[in-house]
């Protein structure tokens, strides 16, 4: 560890302390608050089992919202990513599209949800629209980056036999970037389920609606049921996507690395 590194670490620590003071974040309050957590935890153990049915159905709604949002978002993102890729388009095409997408990504999904609740009213539909917007922003970026990174050899070879641009995209670009796509979609769905679970906070449907309401009325035992269902679902989806990824993607990626 050299003096320069020590100086940087010192400055960072000083900054954290100064900023905490500025926003009035006091660690003492954290320690003093620990007993409160025990109260919450105790109430949480008094779970109301008859709520599991409701929790299950609202979780199902959440998954459905995430699923629709992911599928529709990906379907819109794919053609957009073709237009946003620098190696397939002229500047006039990709620059405005990329700017628009960058703007889309600056909004977290909860802000999109507020916007759509205002637009189409309370309920899952607003949540789905929010997930779609978020998915478009991210999948398009991930996809045009993998399209730009594909091997240029087959692109050159196949364009030199006189195929059209869309034939080239369909028969070379898509298959070359596809192994990444499956893993990106899985990741996005996984992430969207978590996101959708909290969209209920602003009235955009899903299980979050119950959680926020029970917490508002200090019914931690009831909220705990719903939180437990979210936890189990997220773990299950995580486990399933690891399985799918291992089965299909590891093999395909080997192919990406093998050079002729």
């Amino acid at each position, binding site marked *: 560890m050299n003096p320069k590194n020590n100086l940087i670490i010192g400055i960072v620590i000083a900054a954290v302390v100064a900023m905490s003071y500025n926003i009035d974040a006091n660690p003492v309050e954290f320690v003093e608050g620990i007993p409160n957590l025990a109260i919450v935890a105790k109430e949480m153990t008094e779970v109301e089992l008859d709520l599991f049915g409701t929790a299950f159905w609202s979780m199902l709604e959440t998954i459905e919202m995430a699923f629709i949002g992911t599928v529709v978002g990906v379907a819109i993102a794919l053609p957009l990513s073709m237009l946003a890729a620098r190696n397939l388009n002229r500047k006039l095409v990709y620059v405005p599209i990329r700017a628009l997408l960058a703007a889309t990504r600056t909004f977290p999904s909860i802000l999109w949800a507020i916007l759509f609740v205002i637009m189409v009213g309370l309920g899952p539909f607003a949540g789905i629209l929010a997930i779609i917007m978020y998915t478009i922003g991210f999948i398009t970026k991930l996809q045009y980056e993998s399209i730009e990174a594909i*091997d240029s*050899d*087959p*692109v*050159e*070879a*196949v*364009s*030199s*036999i*006189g*195929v*059209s641009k*869309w*034939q080239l995209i*369909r*028969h*070379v670009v898509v*298959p*070359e970037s*596809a*192994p990444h796509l499956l893993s990106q979609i899985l990741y996005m769905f996984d992430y969207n389920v978590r996101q959708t679970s909290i969209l209920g906070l602003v009235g955009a449907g899903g299980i979050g609606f119950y959680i926020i309401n029970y917490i508002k009325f200090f019914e931690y035992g009831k909220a705990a049921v719903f939180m437990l269902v979210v936890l189990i679902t997220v773990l299950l989806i995580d486990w399933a996507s690891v399985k799918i990824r291992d089965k299909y993607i590891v093999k*395909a990626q*080997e*192919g*990406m690395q*093998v050079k*002729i």
Partner: protein
Amino acid sequence: MTLFSKASSTHSFSNLSTISTKTIIQMNDVWASYDAKNYVLKEITLSINSGTNYAIVGQSGSGKTTLLKLINGMMTPSKGQIRVDYQIPNTKNDKFKKSLSKIGYIPQNLGLVKNISVIDNILIGALPRISKVKSFFKIFPQNEINEAEKILHLVGLEGKRDRKTYMLSGGEKRRVAIARALMQKPVLLLADEIVSELDHVTAREIMDLIADAQKKFNLTAVMVHHDIQLGLKYANRVAVIKEGQKILELGVEGDKIVDFQSGNTSQQEILELYNTNES
């Protein structure tokens, strides 16, 4: 009527007596460069007759690949004239696109699509003939699929039909690239150092395969080699390139090698010129 359109219509009943001695590639004093300062090809003049098996040999960096790229129009010359089938080759020119579909170009890196099957790679050669809508949904007409299966057999890959190409050996990959080129129903085959990285046995199998296909489909072949022996063994004509210039154009007559460029038949002098190229 150009050679290309004629050849495509006679493809199915190839008749030896119809082989013409037309010039298929003509270059006159061609110069080429990548950066407008240094010429990587200088004063190249050559003419290749239809049906010839033409070889271009030279050390690495001598300009062989550039010469092939000029022929299929991936590059255009800085100076001089090129005609391929009486047209100016340029991949960006839509008029040349039809001819382009008749030029089977196998780059040194082969340019296979790694994540799709052997048969799908071969079918890519048919794309210029397929309507845009059908090819978008990967719907190939039955006769094209039959053709692809036939070519798959010809190149000896019938057992690997649905294998992803990244799983294949170097020799098998070259067979796929040859098959894709043949699927174009080409009139002209361009191959860049297709056997350079292979062991002797495999290299020979691949060269024999190309020779067979050439006879069968009445192709003109222009093949780049690193090794002059390969050129002399398989080609009718061998252009030797050194530092961007054609220094020899050899042909085998009987058991003698003739330099057509200088008219020199002295084996001693040819050997000397060739050796200066090697060193």
